[in-house]
């Protein structure tokens, strides 16, 4: 069966979609990613869609599902690299990717994941300090 490769980079998972995705492939990616987050204990997922020439409502739904599932598994998803024509079309189609974090490119997406992770860690540390003071 066809799979989209998922790369591990430290505590993040990296996916670059390089093919015109058919529906089954998108659903396989959703399953594979969810399993890998759980196996690797990943803190974040970065999905690069710069090679995708269209995002229709099906792919939009899968991206939303991935973001929500990763959230439940304590990981954050960021989608990067959307082409301008794709963004224009998505808005006109009526699809708003409200649950999904987006960034312009891989570099900014990584920075977003790192900063969100730092924030969470600091909050946890804070709480630990509070406990110590009690």
């Amino acid at each position, binding site marked *: 069966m066809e799979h989209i490769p998922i790369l591990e980079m430290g505590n993040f998972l990296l996916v670059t979609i390089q093919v*015109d*995705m*058919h*529906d*089954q492939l998108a659903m396989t990616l959703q399953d594979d990613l969810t399993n890998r987050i759980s196996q690797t204990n990943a803190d974040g997922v970065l999905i690069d869609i710069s090679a995708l*020439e*269209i*995002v*229709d*409502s*099906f792919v*939009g*739904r899968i991206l939303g599902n991935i973001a929500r599932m990763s959230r439940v598994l304590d990981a954050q998803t960021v989608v990067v690299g959307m*082409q*301008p*024509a*794709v963004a*224009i*079309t998505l808005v*006109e*189609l*009526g*699809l708003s990717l409200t649950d999904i974090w987006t960034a312009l490119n891989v570099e900014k997406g990584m920075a977003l994941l790192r900063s969100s992770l730092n924030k969470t860690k600091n909050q946890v540390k804070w709480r630990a300090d509070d406990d110590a003071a009690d």
Partner: protein
Amino acid sequence: MQQTETLNIQTSIDIVLVRQAVRQMAVEIGLSLVDQTKIVTAASELARNTLEYGEGGTVKLEMLQEGRKRGLRLTFEDQGPGIPNIEMALKDGFTTGSGLGMGLGGAKRLANEFEIQSAVGEGTRVIIVRWK
């Protein structure tokens, strides 16, 4: 490149083939990248509807020429159960399937012309046109 082409829509792989054929014709006609993306996305939505609700069908791709104006017309046809309430089906968020219900309404917004005919028990025909 031929002026007319008909493709079968029977599996989810066919949706990808429809997208590729529509893109190729849209490039041929000289649509801008944004307009190419719009018509290909609309085609993807309608092909999925044909597959999911129409139990499979066909799409006819036609290059149009009216004077100096060029365009692309896509006709999706199926012999499926038909749509009992077209007005409802065109509403955003309305779905009887697993999608988001953006398909028909979204495709209408992405095209310059949109026409739908459906008869319960006979099937559905959706026509969209995008002009250059």
